[in-house]
């Protein structure tokens, strides 16, 4: 095969076909093939599983045993499945926020920090406004959580729109700032005096906790997520705002010439993105942990990036991928029982993303037969 640097096609060695005619195969790049087929996400998950299997095997474990353990832990029992759904809730909310931003190429990777400040703001309600009736305390927590997340998003948007600072760097730096702020409050002013010196806020009262389904841990945050998906889907399809967003996503230059205010859209999109992550944070403290503590998020904000990309930024696809990745996280925990670190799931996530972006491009090349 000869491959000229910079060229768009690679010519494979000439060969004879059955009738004895000489031909050669050409690998051609076709830039017009922008829609990727449905099978790239599926294939990238399979390839990532194979790649990580080789690392697991190199460590002297059987990949089949490990994967079976992960699958059984995540989807095999009803307890495992509800846990998977519990993890899927923050992934769905953060992933939706990320999808909104990525649609117009605003690369928000700050969902982790936005989720953290959302959780902190919700906890602030329980500390500074104790004893509210259940309905009002939940509503107030939701408002505070959303506002805090949106504010954190705005702190990423303003440097981008008015100072030309790359939003990747800003949003990531703010993640570290948020995590340090969390450490400060759980070790400092909000530490539970009756907590045996353990870092964390006091437990929430029943009125400050989200209702759960039966005796499981599955809380009504799931409904927040599904409603958000529905609203987003309708807005994108049927409003002028959604149309403008789609236009910027398809061709930013054309959108600017059409008089669309891109700066304004970046700010709106980051407010939504941060706000949704803030809701996820509120739902975590109020629905799952019932108190603020360190490690409130095991990297939901980062996992949500892959969840969104794997779903091709499609809101309905997000429901599927967030359940899948919720399972991956729960599965990661369950391999700890056989002495493996849960970072297996993080490694899998990175590998899936690698294969996914490669697959999206590979299908743009096609093999052609030429005389």
């Amino acid at each position, binding site marked *: 095969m000869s491959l000229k*640097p*910079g*060229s*768009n096609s690679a010519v494979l060695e000439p060969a004879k076909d059955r009738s004895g005619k000489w031909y050669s195969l050409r690998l051609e*790049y076709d*830039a017009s093939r922008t829609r990727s087929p449905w099978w790239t996400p599926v294939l990238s998950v399979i390839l990532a599983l194979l790649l990580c299997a080789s*690392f697991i095997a190199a460590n002297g474990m059987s990949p089949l045993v490990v994967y079976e353990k992960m699958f059984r832990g995540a989807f095999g029992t009803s307890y495992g499945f509800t846990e998977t759904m519990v993890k899927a809730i923050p992934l769905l909310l953060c992933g939706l926020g990320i999808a909104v931003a990525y649609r117009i190429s605003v*690369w928000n*990777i700050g969902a982790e920090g936005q989720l953290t400040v959302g959780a902190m703001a919700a906890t602030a309600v329980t500390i500074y406004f104790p004893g509210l009736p259940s309905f009002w305390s939940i509503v107030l927590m939701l408002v505070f959580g959303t506002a805090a997340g949106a504010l954190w998003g705005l702190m990423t948007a303003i*440097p981008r729109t008015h*100072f*030309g*600072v*790359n939003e*990747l*760097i*800003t949003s*990531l*730096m*703010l993640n*570290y*700032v948020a995590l*340090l*702020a969390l*450490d*400060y409050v759980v*070790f*400092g002013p909000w530490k539970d005096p009756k907590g045996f010196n353990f870092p964390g806020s006091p437990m929430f009262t029943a009125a400050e906790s989200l209702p759960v389904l039966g005796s499981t841990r599955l809380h009504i945050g799931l409904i927040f997520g599904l409603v958000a998906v529905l609203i987003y889907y309708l807005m994108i399809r049927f409003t002028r705002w959604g149309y403008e967003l789609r236009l910027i996503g398809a061709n930013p230059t054309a959108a600017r010439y059409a008089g669309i205010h891109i700066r304004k859209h970046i700010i709106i999109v980051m407010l939504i993105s941060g706000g949704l992550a803030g809701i996820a944070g509120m739902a975590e403290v109020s629905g799952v942990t019932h108190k603020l503590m360190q490690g409130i998020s095991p990297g939901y904000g*980062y996992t949500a*990036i*892959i969840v969104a*990309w794997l779903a091709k930024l499609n809101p309905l696809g997000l429901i599927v991928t967030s359940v899948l990745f919720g399972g991956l996280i729960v599965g990661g925990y369950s391999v700890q029982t056989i002495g493996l*670190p849960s*970072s*297996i*799931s*993080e*490694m*899998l*996530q*990175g*590998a899936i*993303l*690698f294969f996914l*972006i*490669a697959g*999206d*491009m*590979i299908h743009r090349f096609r093999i052609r037969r030429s005389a």
Partner: protein
Amino acid sequence: MDFTTQLLIAAISAGTPLLLATLGGILTERSGIIQLGAEGLMLMGAVTTCIVYIRSGNLVLALLAAVAVTALLGLVHSFLCVTLRANQTMSGLAMTLFGSGLSAYLGKPVSGAPLPGTSPKLDLGALKSVPVIGEIFGRMDVLAWLSLLLVVLLHLLIHHTSWGLHLRAVGDNPATADVMGIRVQLIRYSYITAGAALIGLAGADMVLAYAPTWNEGLTAGRGWIAVGLVIFARWNPLRALFCAYFFGALDSLGFRIQLLGSAVPPYFLKMIPYIVTILVLMYLGYRNRNKPSGTPEALGTPYIREQRF
């Protein structure tokens, strides 16, 4: 030793990994490809150094392994971004995620285990007895000296050789470079790989000179600070030296203030480098709003021969 000397020593020690990673980023991005995988590459460099050094006891072997592993990851990034023309932002993110997951997985057995030694220091002879200078230089290890040498070499390479001219041409206008007969893909592959290896060396320096053992997520965002420093240094190796040491000083200033018995909680002091990064980038963006920022003009756009833009 007075406070300033101590701060200078700490600034160089904390600044060296940042400098190496920033130089790696500059090499990559000068060729027109965004490098956002620095955090993952640094982690992989650090964990490889730890594992090989602890298992073999040979420092040179450990450093070579770190360079080899990260160069391999650099090849993956090159293949995705140059040959497949994939989304460079996403490829960098994937590298960071994969690198932090894999390093945590591979590093689990050596987590918390002490390294057999640190990187050696040069014997400076008579210079060592000179008061302040001797104290500062006497504490610099081989990698710190290497990073200084690299600053000079890369400056000469980029601005005073024909290779550097080719590199800048590829980063600014690949189509024209291609017409002039410069092998765009080859140059991009080489510099991305070399840049990734340098970032891996930065990770090795983190464990050897800065933190004594491997811990999950050891770099704590320094790879991302390096990504910011590349912009701050305007893709220029000499400026990178100044910027990296400035941030090294900020990083260690937190510790110093704490040691002096400050009433400010340590969490706020640890926030300083992150917040200053954002503020400095905002200031630079504001100041250079109508001026060229030094960005390679083709940064982030894949080059496709025979295609109009």
